[in-house]
């Protein structure tokens, strides 16, 4: 179990980084921005950034990327729009706060093998498992039973039941690939064991209606990375996310469009490793985009996220399959 003090410290750093990014968004703080990848259908150009932020009592070099993707558009004719957009706000809130973290891992279609062997389903995206919590009621610490670890609690419970929750996040489909020399059509790939611990806190939960011009709803969360102790962090933790914050929100516009916004802020690697920064950020943004496509596919599976009878059973139970 991650030491509670480490969790509290990660949350404090996350809180500072969240405030810093709010200032960056509002133009009160500056970062060096650059285009990581060109735009694509439904997505603006992915922008990376470098900046100095004061977090956890120290000013550090940070880097990251900000992405904005098309997620959905309210159905119906233009005449249906005002009502359907308002209704979509409730849908986005329910999905973002109750189901999103469960739906970040999805089972991919996989070949059917006739030979008998136990099936271990390949999963794409991010697999989130709840680990520990601190009660908001009495301050007691506890651990979630493994049997319900995948059924991530409704994030609105962070306002009533839990002070914080830790998640173990892994990325089963993150692979490193390389072309075979002399061949353009043969490549080798191997899984990249990758996982990290993230903390959820009510201060990171986004739950806003009419937050700004053209916006009629914004819902989501922030995940603050809890750096592991020791050498393991250098070898196994993906994205060099030693400490930092990942923000992800669904924004509903009065046009009926829903867009996904993600911001990743991570400690900038030492200057000697600058050569690897761009490929690292590109790989991170690409993986995020692929993950988003999978999650959007799950969002499409139900036409009413407030009606449990239309929601995939595995998602209700948090079983992945």
């Amino acid at each position, binding site marked *: 179990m991650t030491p509670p003090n480490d969790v509290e410290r990660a949350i404090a750093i996350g809180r500072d980084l969240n405030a810093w990014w709010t200032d960056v968004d509002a133009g009160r703080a500056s970062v060096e921005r650059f285009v*990581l*990848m060109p735009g694509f259908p439904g997505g603006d150009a992915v922008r990376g950034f470098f900046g100095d932020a004061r977090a956890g009592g120290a000013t550090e070099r940070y880097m990251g990327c900000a992405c904005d993707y098309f997620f959905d558009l309210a159905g119906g004719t233009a005449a249906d729009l005002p*009502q359907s957009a308002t209704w979509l706000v409730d849908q986005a809130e329910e999905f973002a706060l109750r189901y999103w973290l469960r739906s970040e891992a999805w089972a991919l*279609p996989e*070949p*059917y093998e006739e030979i008998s062997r136990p099936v271990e389903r390949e999963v794409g995206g991010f697999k989130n498992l709840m680990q520990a919590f601190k009660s908001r009621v009495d301050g007691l610490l506890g651990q979630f039973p493994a049997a319900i670890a995948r059924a991530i609690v409704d994030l609105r419970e962070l306002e009533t039941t839990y002070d914080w929750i830790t998640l173990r996040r892994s990325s089963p489909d993150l692979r490193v690939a390389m072309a075979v020399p002399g061949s353009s059509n043969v490549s080798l790939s191997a899984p990249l064991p990758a996982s990290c611990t993230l903390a959820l806190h009510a201060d990171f939960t986004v739950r806003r209606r009419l937050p700004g011009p053209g916006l009629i709803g914004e819902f989501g969360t922030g995940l603050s990375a809890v750096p592991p102790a020791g050498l393991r962090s250098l070898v196994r933790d993906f994205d060099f996310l030693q400490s930092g914050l990942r923000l992800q929100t669904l924004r509903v516009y009065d046009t009926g469009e829903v867009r996904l916004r993600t911001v990743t802020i991570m400690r900038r690697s030492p200057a000697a490793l600058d050569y690897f920064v761009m490929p690292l950020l590109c790989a991170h943004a690409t993986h995020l985009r692929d993950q988003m496509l999978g999650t959007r596919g799950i969002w499409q*599976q139900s036409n009413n996220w407030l009606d449990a009878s239309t929601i995939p059973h595995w998602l209700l139970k948090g079983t992945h*399959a």
Partner: protein
Amino acid sequence: MVTTNPAQATSGFTVDPGSAPLDAYDQVILGQVESQIAMGHELKAWWTENSDTLVRMNRVPIARQIHEPDTNYGFIMDAHLKSGTLPVVGVVQDQAFRWPKLPPSYARDTQWMNAQLRAFVLRYFMRMAGTLPPRGETAGGEGWGYRQMYYKLAATGAIGKFPSAQQTLIVPLDEVGPKYSWIVFLVTIHQFDMPFNVPWVPNGPNVTLSMTQPVHTVMTPEFLLDEDNPEPGVTGRWGYGYSVVPDLAHRSAVTSGPSAVTNTIETLSFRVLDTGEVRAHMDFITPQPPRIVDPVLLAFDVADRFSFGTASKVFGPLKTLLERIEPNVDPVYFSIDVLNTISAGLAAQEFGISRANLFKKFMNLHFTDVYKMYNLAASHFGMVRDWTDSSTLPAWATTGVYAPPGESS
């Protein structure tokens, strides 16, 4: 050979005066079109008659899916055609495409939804089924990229080639029939990759063979689907299909690759259910490949890699000789047969080493590629509120080429 006077008759057909110049390669492709149309129509007739009966009786699972009611199945059987018996394999799949979100109390306007899907499928789908992913300098395509290459005019019977500037401006598919007797499309199936995994190690290391190849296909009016209320519970259905036209000039060690197949048809269709859900469907039927690998080409391919391309040059005459005299033996089939013979069938039973499993692997590969392409196209379909209003469409739908903001197409 370049046809300098496009109006002249060449290779037994009349060239449309508006055609782009035809070269020798074009002639090779066009020479295959009529025979593949005939074969495609024969296969389609067989499919229409048997898809709900014999095919279903012979179906085998191809892929595990969790999203209900998404389905898929394959089949391995003999198709008894008028021209003879053809051993075929194929795959059928059906998946969610879009479920527009509306308050449950709203009555869905099915006519409006039908108009949306019809416009998207018949006018824009082929322009928007593929794109460049946001992967910077490593960009390859995603989905399927379509280009219209050749046509036959219904009024005159003249054949032509679309000028390169028009090749991405796919014509409305319901013009196939009234205006065009047929159109040949070039389909680039991006990310057509076959992974070879370490047995019994899920998510383990693997070797991936990319089989991305351009494929020529010919669509005739018989493959156009444009139906209102085709069956109970379905308010409309639209789609297209085609016969594959082999590229005889394409040489590859993998003889069953997409560019090489003949006697193959594929149909892609979309339907609106009365619940408002939009679903996508695909049928693919192809002959069981007579062989998988050309041993001579494979040997020289490997030798060229180690000799920086000099092997084929130095031993060119030997290669030509071997290609002429090689027995029609496939090393893959041969290995499978030998393993099963010496193990009394255990190789197939215990390790899944059999021709049938190889066919299923190919069908799974095709299924996965279509599955991803449909998901990508579904996100593009969802981005526009009204596909019937051309003034509100993204430039990409108009030009057929996606250009990131700030870059011209």
